[in-house]
Structures are given as C-alpha cells and as structure tokens.
C-alpha cells in the first residue's frame, strides 16, 4: 500500500453562470496521505468547498469538471475518479464507502424529518449487506465512538433535538459509517462554539489516528489549521497559491497572500495598542454613559420552545440579573458562546427586546440620566439616535431595494433635520470616512462585497453622530483579512469620534484586539468582568479559562487546544 491515498492533479472546474463563466478551480493539485491531514485554507469564494466536493463528484449545477485527474488508490489499483461516469455504480460505491464527507452546517446537512439512526443506518446499509438489526447495532456503536451518550436512545431522536455539537458528532458518525479511507471535513467546526470546536477537532483527530484515514480538512481559520494540519494548501481565487508542511507555511510563508492571511490572524492574536482612556475607567473618574443594573429577560410563557436543555423547568432566563457599566470612550466587549445571552443583552439595551426586569440608565450628552426602560416611543427614537447598532449580517441588514444613499440618509431624513441635498453631502462624507468612494452612493447593496457592505452599515450607524455603538458580532461574518480591516476602521473611528462601544462577539481574539474591558457571559449570567488583556491571558473564572484555552492558537508549534481545560461534566 502506498502512502498517498488520493492525489489530485490539475483539477479544473468551471461554473457556467448566466452572464459569464466562473473558473472556480484552476489547475489544483495536492495529495492526501494515509493518517495525515491536509488543510485546505482560503477565504470564502476561493473554491475550496467545490474542490472537496469534486473529489466525490458531487458538483452542484451549473458547475462542471473541465480537466484534471483525481487518482484514488484502491485494492484494485489506482482509479481516476474524474474519469468515472457521473452516475455510475463506481462513483456511488466510492461515496460514503471510501470517502466520507462532513459538512459545515450540521443542522441543515441532516434531514430534519428522519431520525438520526435511520440516516446513519441508511449509510451503513448502502455499502454493507447488513440486516436492519445489525445496522442498528453498528449505528449505535458509531454514536458511541463519536462520544454521544446513551447512543441506543439517541438513534431514535431527530436532529433538531440535538445540540450543535451532537449533530456534528452524528454527522461524523455517518461519514465514518463504512470505515472510509478518506475523510473530507468541510469547515466542520465553523458553526460551533470554540469549546465545542475543540472537542470536535479532538474527536476527528482521534478517529483519524485510530483508523489511519487520510483527511482533507477545509477551513478558513488559521488557528484550526495550526492545531490540526500536517500539510497545508492555501487557495485563492480557485488556485492553490502555496502548499507545504504546516510548519513551513506558518513560519516561512512564501506567497504574499499566505503572509497576508497569517498577518491578519496574528495581528488579532497580539491585541491592539491599549486605549489611552483605559486608565480613566480604572479610576472611575467619569460617570458611565450606560449603566445596566439587574437586567433580566426571561421567556416564561414560551418556555417549551427552548425547553430542551433548560433545567429549571419554568421560565428560561436568556439574560439573568446582569450589571455592567459602559464608560464614555470605552470599548466594552461582551463575550460568550451561543446561547449565553450576549445578543439578547445587546437588544435589551436598545429595547428592541423588552426587558423583563432591571434598569438601563443612559446619561445624555448634557449629563442628564434617563431610564431607558421607561421611555415612550418618541423618547426611544431620540435614544436610538444616540445609541446605534451595527449588525452582524452585512447582507440582511441592508435593504436590497434601496440605494446606499437612501440607506445611509434614511435616519437623517427621518429625523427631519436635513434636506435631501444636505443629507447627500453628509452621506458622501460618511462614505469617505468608512473608506468607500462617495460616487458609489447611487448603487445598490448587492453591488458590494461583504466587507464593503459592513462599511456601509457602519456609515449608517455613524450618520446621526451617535455616542454609543453596539456592535453585534459585527465582524464574525467576514473573512479574516477583511475582519481585521473592519476592526481597524472601527478603532480609528472610535478614537476619532470618541465613541463608546458595546462590542458583542464570540471571537476571543477579536474582543482582545478591540476592547478595553470584557464581560464574559455564560447561560445568561456574567461570569467574569475585567480588563481585556487580563481576561484573555489570565482569566480567573473556570468557565473563562476553559473558553480561552479552547481557542485554537495559530501556531503549529504551540498547539493550545491539546492542553485545554475541559468541562468537569
């Protein structure tokens, strides 16, 4: 048996779109070795997922294979997958039989109307002649292998009864059902929390080593690469720009793009230059601009919807008795995993969601304190002029049917303070401020890339000259290089305009880079508050320590995750 399980040679894929042909993959070559992991790294649209799917000949319309070989080593010699008939028996035997596939979205990748067991058993029985009963035994065994508790019972559950991590485990169990030689994992942990991500990566690695599988792991996260890869291939615009052993790529990158990727990652890792105002807050020399006391949001009546996993039976408290202060000019990070209540907290502060109890006090520019929870509609509108929100999703938050000018000018016109002409000038000014060409203001959002759209969103937030900006995962939908640009933009704006930021994120490195202080949330509670650098390097609460230690370290020589703290349960 050779060491190389699969080798891809000069693979090219085209997409025939309505207006043009997109050459999604161009002359891509790489090898997958037994027991080794190749990480395919690249930003969105670089063609890495398509490449992975091409290995199984699952190419969505209107894509087509236009050249190259996919040579799979097998018991009967080498087979060129690229040359097999598209719907032939051989291909079907390969899929799931010799190559397993794990996807990014564990929720949508599993059928919602079939039980987990039936989906796994189907995969088994597709390639093995097993009775239903035997297949079930095997499926339960697989679930046990992926560390799902009580596998017999879980077989009869539906995917939506599973947590994200469990679903991904089930997905992995399915991919491994027939002991494939090769496992393709397409962003398997992107949608998961860091702690879960660490567990899943651990699991995959352990299973790979046990089985001696070759693995192709696709990711955009350099940290994950550093933690898992043996070899790395960097993709950009359909080409592999650089490829080699992980250590060389990280420590001696040759291609400028690789360097750019690493720089962006490392920059966040290092943290920003400390804010000049930090000392002030320490001294409590100024009054907070927003202070929150005992803020609670509970979903009592509809508890059943969230029923799964909420232990206390009755009301579920999304946010439970939260206190914090936001000082002028300060950037306060709110960190937590999904379900920790951080997004709800942001919405409560804006009263997009009505709090169940607690106080939110806002100190106006004139120094007047107002109770946000008591505001009527008109007063709330005034409050919303001072406290603005930047959204996570740069696609959903811009109305596709309005021009950039209309979008940014909308708050200006609504407030009635400006004529159309004045608003136009202001929009131009704002666009310049966020680094966009003012000439673009007559265009529609769809003409812009994700990063550009996020800039438009920022411009909108700035239009009314706010004092506080709540950024809800403002960078998490962006690729790493763009993420750092946006963060730099926000930093500069913040310094220039003296804004306060409530910066909500699940990404520790981003928070560390951007924030002065950090609030760590877990299950609706604040578990720890403190200086950003301290929290990120030397947390005191056990949960925080576990969280921090689960963040992958973008340095293959210092794999943090292996030594991470695990939950006691």
């Amino acid at each position, binding site marked *: 048996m050779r060491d190389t399980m699969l080798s891809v040679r000069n693979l090219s894929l085209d997409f025939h779109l309505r207006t043009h042909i997109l050459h999604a993959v161009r002359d891509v070559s790489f090898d997958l070795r037994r027991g080794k992991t190749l990480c395919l790294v690249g930003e969105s649209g670089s063609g890495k997922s398509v490449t992975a799917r091409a290995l199984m000949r699952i190419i969505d319309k209107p894509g087509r294979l236009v050249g190259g070989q996919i040579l799979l080593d097998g018991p009967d010699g080498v087979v060129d997958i690229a040359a097999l008939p598209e719907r032939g028996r051989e291909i079907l035997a390969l899929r799931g039989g010799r190559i397993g596939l794990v996807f990014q979205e564990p929720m949508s990748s599993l059928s919602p109307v079939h039980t987990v067991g039936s989906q796994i058993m189907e995969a088994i029985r597709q390639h093995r002649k097993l009775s239903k009963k035997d297949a079930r035994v095997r499926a339960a065994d697989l679930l046990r292998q992926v560390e799902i508790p009580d596998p017999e019972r879980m077989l009869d559950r539906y995917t939506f009864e599973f947590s994200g991590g469990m679903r991904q485990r089930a997905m992995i169990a399915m991919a491994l059902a027939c002991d494939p030689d090769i496992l393709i994992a397409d962003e398997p942990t992107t949608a998961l929390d860091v702690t879960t991500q660490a567990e899943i990566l651990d699991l995959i690695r352990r299973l790979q080593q046990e089985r001696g599988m070759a693995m192709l792991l696709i990711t955009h996260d350099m940290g994950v690469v550093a933690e898992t890869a043996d070899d790395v291939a960097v993709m950009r615009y359909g080409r592999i720009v650089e490829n080699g052993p992980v250590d060389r790529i990280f420590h001696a990158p040759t291609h400028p793009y690789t360097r750019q990727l690493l720089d962006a990652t490392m920059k966040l890792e290092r943290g920003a230059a400390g804010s000049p105002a930090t000392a002030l807050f320490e001294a409590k020399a100024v009054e907070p601009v927003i202070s929150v006391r005992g803020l609670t949001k509970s979903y009592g009546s509809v508890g059943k919807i969230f029923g799964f996993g909420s232990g206390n039976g009755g009301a579920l408290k999304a946010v439970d008795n939260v206190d914090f202060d936001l000082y002028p000019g300060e950037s306060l990070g709110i960190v937590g995993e999904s379900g920790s209540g951080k997004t709800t907290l942001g919405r409560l502060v804006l009263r*997009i969601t009505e709090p169940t109890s607690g106080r939110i006090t806002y100190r106006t520019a004139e120094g007047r304190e107002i109770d946000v929870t008591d505001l009527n509609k008109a007063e709330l509108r005034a409050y919303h002029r001072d406290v603005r929100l930047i959204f996570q999703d740069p696609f959903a938050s811009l109305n596709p049917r309005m021009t950039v000018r209309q979008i940014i000018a909308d708050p200006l016109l609504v407030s009635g303070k400006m004529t159309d002409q004045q608003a136009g000038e202001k929009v131009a000014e704002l666009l310049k401020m966020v680094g966009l060409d003012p000439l673009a203001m007559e265009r529609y959002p769809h003409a812009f890339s994700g990063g550009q759209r996020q800039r438009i*969103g920022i411009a909108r937030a700035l239009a009314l000259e706010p004092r506080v900006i709540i950024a809800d995962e403002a960078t998490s939908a962006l690729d790493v*290089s763009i993420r750092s640009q946006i963060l730099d933009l926000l930093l500069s704006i913040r310094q220039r305009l003296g804004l306060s930021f409530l910066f909500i994120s699940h990404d520790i490195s981003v928070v560390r880079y951007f924030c002065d202080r950090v609030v760590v949330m877990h299950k609706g509670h604040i578990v720890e508050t403190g200086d950003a650098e301290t929290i990120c390097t030397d947390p005191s609460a056990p949960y925080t320590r576990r969280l921090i230690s689960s963040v992958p370290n973008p340095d293959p020589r210092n794999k943090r995750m292996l030594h991470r703290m695990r939950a006691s349960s």
Partner: protein
Amino acid sequence: MLADSRPLPSIDAGPAISPLKPGGSITSEAAAGQWTLIRHRFFRNKVAAFAGCVILLLYLVGAFAEFLAPGLPNASRPQYTFAPPQRISFFAPTAGGGHEFLPHVKGYRIEIEPQALRRTFVIDENKVIPIGFFVDGPAYRLWGMIPMKTHLLGPLDSREPMYLLGSDRLGRDLLSRLIYGTRISMSIGLVGVAISLTLGVVFGAISGFYGGWVDTVIQRIIEIVSAMPTIPLWLGLAAAIPLTWSPLSVYFVVTLIVSLLGWTGLAREVRGRFFALRGEDFVTAARLDGSRERRIIFRHILPSLTSHILAVVTLAVPTMIVAETSLSFLGVGLKPPVVSWGVLLQDAQNVRSVATAPWLLIWPSLAVVTAVLSFNFFGDGLRDAADPYES
C-alpha cells in the same frame, strides 16, 4: 470595482471569469436597481417574454376591436346559421382559365333539411367572394366616439358572407364576436383584482406587521371568508343587484363584491412575507433609524414585496377570466347582448355545438386558453424574476 483589500503583488486580483462565448463581453449589473435587475432576469425567460407579448397583443385587439372585427358582434343573418368557417385563398381562376391574384373566400350553397330542422352548408367552390384590407363595412363608432366604417379585413361587398371562424346559431360572425369579447374578458377582471390587491395588502401588512391579537382577529376573518364557498356568494349577490342596471355594470359590481372576498389569498401571502421580513435586520435597522411604523411598512417592507405582489396580481387575472366563464355557465356572469368569451362559451355549451358546430367551442376555448396560459407564464416569469437578490 471598489477596492476592498489592499493591493496584492499577485497575478490574481480577483476571481477568474471569462465570457460565455469566446469574444463575448461580460455584462455588469453592479449599478442596476431593483427594477432593472427584474427586467434583465425577466427577459432572459423567453417563454415569459413571449407570453408578455401575447398579452399585449390581446389588449391591443381589445382596444381596437371595432376596427379589427370584420363585422358587428350582434349582427345576425338568418340564412347563415351555423355556417362553417371559410378558408382564405389568394388566387382565383379567371374567366380565361388562368389564375389571378385575388384574395377571396368561397361562398356557400345552402339547403334546408326540414326533418332535421337545420341548414346544411356546402362550400361553393365556384362562388368567389373577394376580400381585402381596409374595406368599408358596417358603420361603427371607434371607442363609442369616432364614427368609422373601415374594417381591417372584410369582403369587398359587405353584403357577401365572410365567416372566417364560422357563424353561430343566429348567423353571427364568430370572429367578430371573439374580437369584441376580447375587450370585455381581458379588462373586466382588472378592477376586481385591483380591489383584492388593496385589501389583501392592507390586511396582510397589518396582520403580519403587528402580529398578536390583531393578527388573530384578521386571521379569523380570513378563515371565515376563505371557507365560504364562492358559488353561493355569486348567486346570492348577482340576484340581489338592482335590475335596472345594465348587464355590464351588474357584472362589474358582482366582480367588485366578490373581489371583496377574494383578497384572502394575497393577504395570507403578504402576511407571511411581513412576518418573515419584520424580523429581518434591515427592518430592525429602519426602526432604530427612527422610522415610524407607517414608514417602515410602506417605505422599507412593501417595496420588497411589490414585485411579488405584481406577480400574484398577474396570476389573479387569469383566475378572473376563468371565473367569468364559469359564472356565465351559472347564468350570473355577463349576459347577452354583451359579448365576452364566457358568453361565447356558454352559447357553445350544448351538444348541438359540440356535435355539429365545433368551431363555436374551439375558438373561444382557444382564446381563453391563450390568455390564461399567457398570464400564467408571464406571472411565473415575473415571480421568478421578482426577487433579484435571492440566490
């Protein structure tokens, strides 16, 4: 393109693309607005574009019915009852035995069969009836105003019979009736659809935007209304309308009233979309920008729906056309002497026509089918193109 990333010293500054055909150019839609995009997408759908042309054509036929029809819709000729269609020929034999260019139709030989109580028609090959364009025929008033007597097509001698699609039981020209029917059938549903549209959008928007008890109440109303069978309603309403009104306005009013009950489908759809959209970030953004509810509904949410609503409306028109024919069947729709496709079909709705005068059945059915098909394909195309920002 706007630069988003710092320039890289790389051979690839962007994704590799090439034109569909060698030498072709890549069209950019970057600066296009919603309607431009919809138009682009729509016209890529050849079937829908063709359907649109057919609809336009039908409306043109309706608009110039008086001119296009060779005769008057209700002019009857006793001796030509159930006359079969004639064919247009272009060359006629001359006296000398040769042929000359002379567009014409052939006349009929008619016999009465008293036992079977009918006339039998035989096309008389020797009887040439010359026809021509822009000929003088029966006088009419274009749009009820301009007195004219020129017809697009007709026999040179207007006393001669020309029944290109045959005639009906009273010896009326089916082609002329069909053309006049186009006007009524293609337009009568529009008002009803417009009313349904307004109600559907308003109720749907309120229900979907506010939710809560408002939604519950509106939902109950929708439920009641949509569970109501339509036929009893039509019958009841049609019988309750004052009789002195002209048949056309009676139908008009019935259409109107029924459209008061036909808005539920649209309301449901609008509500669903509002439900989905009111949670969208851009709506929250508008709220945070200080927009009041009305502004949010009309400026931010509704524009996202206009193209969908348009598609729904387009799809509602054929429903009205089909409904009109059904109503004529029930005797509560349009009635003679008004001519509509439904009236023509009702005339043909008997064994006599099916067995001995199938043209009375085929042509009006074909007209209805054409219109309904066109509207459906057009509406489908519109719906597919309606959301240029999906996928």
